[in-house]
């Protein structure tokens, strides 16, 4: 493994872009329009370029950041998340009169934190990355300072997140006490040596880390903050955090549990399996009764976390590949869904009740068609990407012998179809009384949604290339 500075180039690009946006904001005259988001795009494209160059080189920096293919795949996913989020943020920032510089800076810093989280190979660096990401996202959640719901959501998210961070730190402390190291490779070899007769403190460390990660990936029963935060945040921010945070947290979750704690897989597998089942069931069942689209999609996002946990607990080559592929497709799809919600969110009316979607199919046929594609993909219908992703997860579960989890998974995905279709029903099959209440669609955001839809069909119909990348990613580290 080469040691150099190179491995952190992608996140350095993003961080530099973040600093640049901050500076640009400082020099902006009040009222002057400045394409600040463009700086972010440049930074993300630079990161994308660096990621492509680093692919297959297995670089590592300072012994704690590894730009292996696994990390780079997630970095790529995060770049896609970042670009799409920037593209759909424009209308929100303008309409809500949000401070553009702060907004984009925070989004870019959060992205840098996520990238670090995906590539870190040391528990302390993972913790650092987690905090960089989380603090920026807390602020973004509450960025509508005049909105009580937004503030409440940010505060809840912050308190519960801080709580989870404490658990996570305790977990790191116990692990350090057991092994004398925070480096994942050393922890892994020591765990393997003791795997025959694990000490009780090992379970304690495991449990605390599971709680910490469980909060970040909103696994049941640590999901309480999710619906409030997703509902309170501006929809563009929700799009960003429901995908980016999940991708980064799952990347670290997989790295820690399937490398450092892999020797204890039989032990934590049971716990994570139960969490996965509970997450899938609760996410879908509670999702059915929601009348607010954002809350409904928050529960849907919880349920998708459950499928990802199934892939994680399966742990075989399919499972690891499935996590990567699922994160990518989920990210693209969920940003699409929240992008549509963000476009419909107008100043005096959030349009976020299921019943607000009545007649969208008549007023905005294109937007409704895009929304339908995204929802059907979330529901796992072929030929959309969501089907391939779910299929990948369930084949991992069947292969690993977790047939029960696979059965719960497919049945909950049938139930989830019910609530995704509720929105479709509203859009196409319900008459409308008030046609002129939806705003026009800005070009950039519309184009981003179209790109997402094309990617969804591409990943659904011709997934081979990306599946191969995912397979190549997992072979480098595990």
């Amino acid at each position, binding site marked *: 493994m080469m040691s150099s500075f190179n491995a952190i180039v992608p996140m350095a690009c993003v961080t530099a872009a973040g600093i640049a946006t901050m500076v640009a904001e400082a020099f902006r005259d009040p009222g002057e329009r400045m394409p600040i988001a463009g700086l972010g795009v440049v930074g993300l494209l630079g990161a994308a370029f660096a990621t492509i160059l680093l692919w297959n080189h297995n670089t590592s920096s300072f012994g704690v950041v590894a730009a292996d293919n696994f990390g780079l795949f997630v970095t790529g996913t995060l770049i896609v998340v970042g670009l799409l989020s920037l593209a759909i943020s424009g209308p929100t920032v303008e309409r809500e009169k949000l401070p553009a510089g702060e907004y984009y800076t925070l989004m870019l810093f959060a992205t840098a934190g996520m990238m670090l989280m995906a590539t870190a190979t040391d528990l302390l660096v993972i913790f650092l990355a987690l905090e960089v990401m989380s603090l920026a996202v807390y602020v973004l959640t509450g960025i509508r300072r005049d909105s009580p719901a937004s503030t409440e959501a940010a505060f809840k998210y912050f308190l519960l997140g801080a709580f989870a961070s404490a658990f996570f730190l305790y977990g790191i402390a116990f692990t350090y006490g057991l092994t004398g190291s925070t480096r994942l490779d050393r922890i892994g070899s020591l765990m393997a040596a003791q795997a025959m007769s694990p000490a009780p403190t090992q379970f304690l460390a495991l449990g605390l880390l599971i709680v910490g990660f469980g909060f970040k990936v909103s696994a049941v029963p640590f999901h309480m903050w999710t619906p409030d935060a997703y509902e309170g945040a501006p929809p563009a921010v929700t799009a960003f955090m429901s995908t980016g945070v999940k991708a980064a947290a799952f990347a670290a979750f997989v790295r820690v549990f399937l490398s450092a704690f892999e020797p204890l897989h039989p032990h934590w597998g049971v716990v994570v399996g139960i969490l996965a089942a509970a997450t899938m069931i609760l996410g879908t069942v509670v999702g059915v009764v929601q009348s607010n689209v954002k809350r409904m999609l928050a529960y849907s996002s919880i349920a998708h976390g459950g499928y990802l946990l199934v892939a994680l607990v399966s742990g075989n080559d399919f499972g690891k590949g499935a996590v990567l592929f699922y994160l990518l497709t989920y990210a693209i799809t969920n940003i699409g869904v929240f992008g549509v919600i963000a476009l419909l969110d107008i100043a005096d009316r959030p349009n976020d009740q299921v019943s607000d979607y009545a007649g969208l199919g008549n007023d905005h046929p294109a937007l409704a068609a895009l929304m339908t594609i995204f929802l*059907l993909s979330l529901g796992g219908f072929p030929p959309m990407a969501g089907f391939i992703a779910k*299929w990948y997860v369930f084949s991992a579960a069947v292969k690993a012998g977790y047939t029960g989890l696979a059965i719960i998974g497919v*049945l909950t995905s049938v139930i989830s*179809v019910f609530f995704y279709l509720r929105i479709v029903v509203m859009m196409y099959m319900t008459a409308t009384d008030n046609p002129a209440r939806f705003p026009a669609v800005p070009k950039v955001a519309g184009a981003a949604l179209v790109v997402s839809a094309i990617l969804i069909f591409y990943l659904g119909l011709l997934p*081979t290339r990306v599946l*191969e990348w995912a397979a190549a990613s997992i072979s480098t580290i595990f």
Partner: protein
Amino acid sequence: MHFPILTSLIALPVAGSILLLFVNGDEERSAPLVRNIALVVSLLVFAETLLLWSQFNAASGDFQFIERHAWIPAFGIEYFVGVDGISLLLLVLTGFLTPLALLSSWESVHEKTRAFSICVLLLESAMMGVFISLDLFLFYIFWDAMLVPMYFLIGVWGYERRLYAAIKFILYTMAGSVLMLLAILGLAYLHYSTTGAYSFDLLKLYELPVPLHTQFWFFLAFALAFAIKVPLFPFHTWLPDAHVEAPTAGSVILAGVMLKMGTYGLVRFAFPLFPAAAAYFAPALAVLAVIGIIYGALVAMVQPDMKKLVAYSSVSHLGFVVLGIAAMNTQGVSGAVYQMLSHGISTGGLFLLVGMLSDRRHTRLIAEYGGLKKVTPHLVAAFLLITLASIGLPGLNGFVGEFLILLGAFRWDPRLAAFAATGVILSATYMLWMFQRVNYGPVTNEKNAHLADLRPREWVVIVPIIAVAILMGVLPNLFLRPIEPSVERMLNHVHQGAATRIHADGRQPSTIGHEPSAMSHQP
């Protein structure tokens, strides 16, 4: 390389619907163009299916017109399509009914015509895909993708309770099919653990020795998906709702083609993949089928709504099909395949006629009609012919299939045949009684006194149906000839599979189950 005719059956409707996306303009002006494009595309597809039939080698029971390309190589997933005698005529049926369904909606669908035509064409594409897929993954994709356009057809263009019916339709069907997905995955994994490579290739999986215990579970998962689709009693409750609320085109396609996918799935997948389990469960399937035959007929008899009556008659008629398949002899299975086609024609025709009546009167209640014979003699004549075809009068299509099925069932178990035969009598009762109440007697309702008779467009819809019904009754061999070799081949496979399994089972009863040793002694 020959022309990829099977791929074009899938691609052409998709291309047509993409073309439709570019037809802009307001509803009034664009609708005629949209309708004509959709009709031309569907007619082209029908012509292709006829071409396929003419070039099909009826003497062979093997798959023909095979196309095979790697798709997702890492998992052994291929784009693998082909057609044999069992699927050939179902393709022709799909090609035949789609233009008729479009024509039947020429005037009754006057909102969102473009979206409607796109849905019908996409549905046709997916249905074709289901019938030609020889890769289980590909099959599942089409199987699931088919639900979406149908959901929209029912939900957007249906009658009053359409939302409920659409959601019920999609949830029922999906609930059944996701377990099949798991069974497919399990099968592919079994192939991996036996041979070292993943495969969803149906022909390879046919040869895969599946442990007995596993066969049972996999068979149940497949059979559940197909039983819901057929629908077999007691999984039929979605059907009356979906049929009644769907627009005429939706009902025609649903009854004419989509229900056949359940029985087709049993013949193509569930029975040959898991022969021992199929032999074990066949009596249970047959009993459910017979219950369905009688139950469907009895419930049909008391329906006040014509569409609901036809829907329940489908439950009864498809019971015959399942009975024929469960009998697992040449007569039974050939009769079942024949009956699938025949039911598509006669029930499709009935739904078209009911649609014509309801376009005129905006009601489907039998009590609202009466004495139509004097008002609309041509329509009633067509109605009579199709009613008789549906009952199974000799000389029309319904007779051949039912006769073969009963023959097959009698050879297997005379008791089942005896009970099933009452279904034939019951079907005469409910169909003729409905026919009598609608068409004979005095005109009791003033609104019926001036109904228009068949319009030119309706002639175009109904004449082909009647022609095919007569052709199938008079020249059954034309249709049975390509069916039989493939049926023989499939039955040989099933019987062999069941026999070796039971034999192996007798030798080493202790090794049944998941453990690898159960597979080690298999060839």
